């Protein structure tokens, strides 16, 4: 057994290749527009059928049928282990205070962690479902946490906000909810 059976020549270029990939990635990253709209394929489509068990004891779980009917609402995809989710908590609280109904889906989370998260950052949610395998998250076209959807009274997805809700986004979301009333 030798130290290394004569390393192939191309393998020596591998580190440089990986590094080049890194450089390309961050150049694209540095030049991206700071804020942009993401067109989601799910906008304008009804929510898929789903039924999630409650993530915490004090709130009911969530299903498609429970979301349709009534008035437009927000659906917030979050997780207790996600730092941007903690950052957007004050904005969600503000929205809830202004009378917006918010439902939540906790992604790959544990009950006690969600409870701790809500206790620490406030609980603006009317219902919270637990999505342990990201199945509902995938089905509604969300690929990360946090994301927030505007769902109209008929259960149709009207808008998808990717990333944390910053203070400057609150008014925009309220406007989207108003639009969804029509």
């Amino acid at each position: 057994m030798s130290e290394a059976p004569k390393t192939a020549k191309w393998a020596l270029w591998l580190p440089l290749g990986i590094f080049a990939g890194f450089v390309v990635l961050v150049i694209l990253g540095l030049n991206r527009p700071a804020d942009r709209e993401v067109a989601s394929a799910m906008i304008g489509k009804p929510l898929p059928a789903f039924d999630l068990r409650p993530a915490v004891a004090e709130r009911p779980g969530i299903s498609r049928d429970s979301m349709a009917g009534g008035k437009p609402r927000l659906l917030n995809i979050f997780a207790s282990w996600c730092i941007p989710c903690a950052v957007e908590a004050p904005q969600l609280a503000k929205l809830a205070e202004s009378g917006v109904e918010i439902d939540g889906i906790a992604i790959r989370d544990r009950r006690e962690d969600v409870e701790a998260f809500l206790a620490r950052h406030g609980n603006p949610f009317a219902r919270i479902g637990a999505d342990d395998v990201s199945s509902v998250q995938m089905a509604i076209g969300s690929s990360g946490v946090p994301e927030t959807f505007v769902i109209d009274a008929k259960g149709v997805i009207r808008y998808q906000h990717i990333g944390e809700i910053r203070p400057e986004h609150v008014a925009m979301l309220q406007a989207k909810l108003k639009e969804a009333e029509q």
Partner: protein
Amino acid sequence: MIAEFGLAALWLAAALAAFQLFAGTLSLGKKTAELGQAVRPVAILQGVLCLISFIVLMVLFCETDLSVKLVAMNSHSAKPFIYKLAGTWGNHEGSMLLWVAVMAASGAVLALFERRLPERAMLATLAGQAFVSLGFYAFLLFSSNPFERLAEPPAEGQGLNPLLQDIGLAFHPPTLYLGYVGLSVAFSFAIGALITREVGPAFARAMRPWVLGAWIFLTLGIVAGSYWAYYELGWGGWWFWDPVENASLMPWLAATALLHSVSVLAARNALRAWTVMLGVVAFSMSMVGTFLVRSGILTSVHAFAVDPERGTFILALLAINIGGALTLFALRAATVTEGERFSVTSREGALVFNNVMLSAILGIVLFGTLYPLIAEMMGARVSVGPPYFNPMSAVFAVPMMLIMAVGPLLRWRRDNLTRIRGSLLLLVGIVVLSAITVTLIAVPGVLPYIGLSLAGALALASVLPLRGRKLLRTPLPTWGMVLAHLGVAVSLFGMASESAFSVEKLVALREGETTAVGPWQVTLSRVSPVAGPNWTALQADMQVSYQGGKAQTTHPQARSFWQPVQQTSESALLTRWNGQLYVVLGEEAADDRWQLRLWWKPFVTLIWYGGVLIALGGLLALFGRVASDLRRIVARDKIAYRRERQGR
């Protein structure tokens, strides 16, 4: 005047670095060898000038000279002295000046003391060092001048991020920087070795103390940073897999691998190309880390000093330095002759396995850190958290720790497991016993279960190499290895215990009410306002007692800083030998209640004690290596002296 003096020193140092690169490179040719004699003195002078420049900036911060823009932006006359001093490196320009100063000082020390390497390799190394430095000098002087003056000095400074007004800041960044930049010396050694094709035990022995030193500082920096985040951020967690934490972890992983492979190269003349590559990778990871932190390209809770404009500049530096080094590696590595052979079951075999595992973890951390960026390219914003990092890194960390237990018991070159079967059986027995115990007390979670099962056996295995040795005669580096491996076991136990047995409680108490968390009784006596030098706070007086024992008082605070306006929570920690009580005072709730977050974290402190043990092990090894080097130099000088006398 003094600011201009600092700037002048910085320009001069940069000019000297340029000369160092020029003279060092030229003297590699045969005809211009005399030029090489100037390189060492120039490197020393460059280090001195750059240090002077940094000291000048410290003086400006201590005096709160508000005519200097950087001071006006980041300091305040009401700030306590120690934080004024620490403010020197608590901002972008100052921290970059610290970086360059440490790098120049390392070059100076190298020029003063390193005598083992062939002169050509030494010159190439110093030229490499100057090349890397020059980029950072340019960065400082053209885009981040720390000495810039304001035309109209303001009446008062703008303060400093309150989260950074903590004793942790005084030591955390400089320690990490000493580590990051110490690796630059290893990087320059690798470049020098590639250029001159001098890869062998002499190169490894020359490089080893630098790797050890940098690694010690990195270890301490990470331990301190972890503890700082633990008590200052008030979240009760000790590691968040935050991009900035990962930025310090990645060079540490590479440096740990390098530390082990450089030992193989020094002792056995094997793993030549691999060691050189790790030398390049370790410092590359430091630079990539700095880039990720400074450019603000990744969202991070730690990003205190970010600026996307400057990111481009650092990226250009990265591309030149790392790209250049890796190209050189790809061109030259094939010509590095193969090292000594060894069998799979041998000390070398175990070290190679350890290296592969460390590299795999490095890859996982790098990928996880960059993944949000990749996802963003595809139009999604994601946050990668513990659900990815914990299991993925454990997959490689667990086998690595198993081999860490066995490797030091093996002989170099060729061994067989039957020779050490007694020890192996003992260790397996302990693992089985621990696993049964852990099963009986029903530990939640797979990772804590594995951790608690392994920790005891790892601790014993780490001291087994001392068996049958005369302890006082055992070389210091062996003691160092034992301590460092023991530290890994201790830290592992702390991590597993913290995640398995922590008790968390959220309550709203009135004054006078009592609650229990774990074995603690906690009473909220009263909440009252207090004032500090540049903050006011609500402070809770609390009586706590462990299992009904003597009551102690503790004072968590919710602080409000007024310059700039920000709220922070000063958690209160009560440390016992078997764990910590962690108390955070929250908001005022309805009807005179106060929100309190309480944690009882059994053996959590072992996480950091283990880390300190690891660093201490490194320190012993470094001390042993340097001492024996010095002895060798003295002995050689004596022989030379005798020869000279006999010659007469």
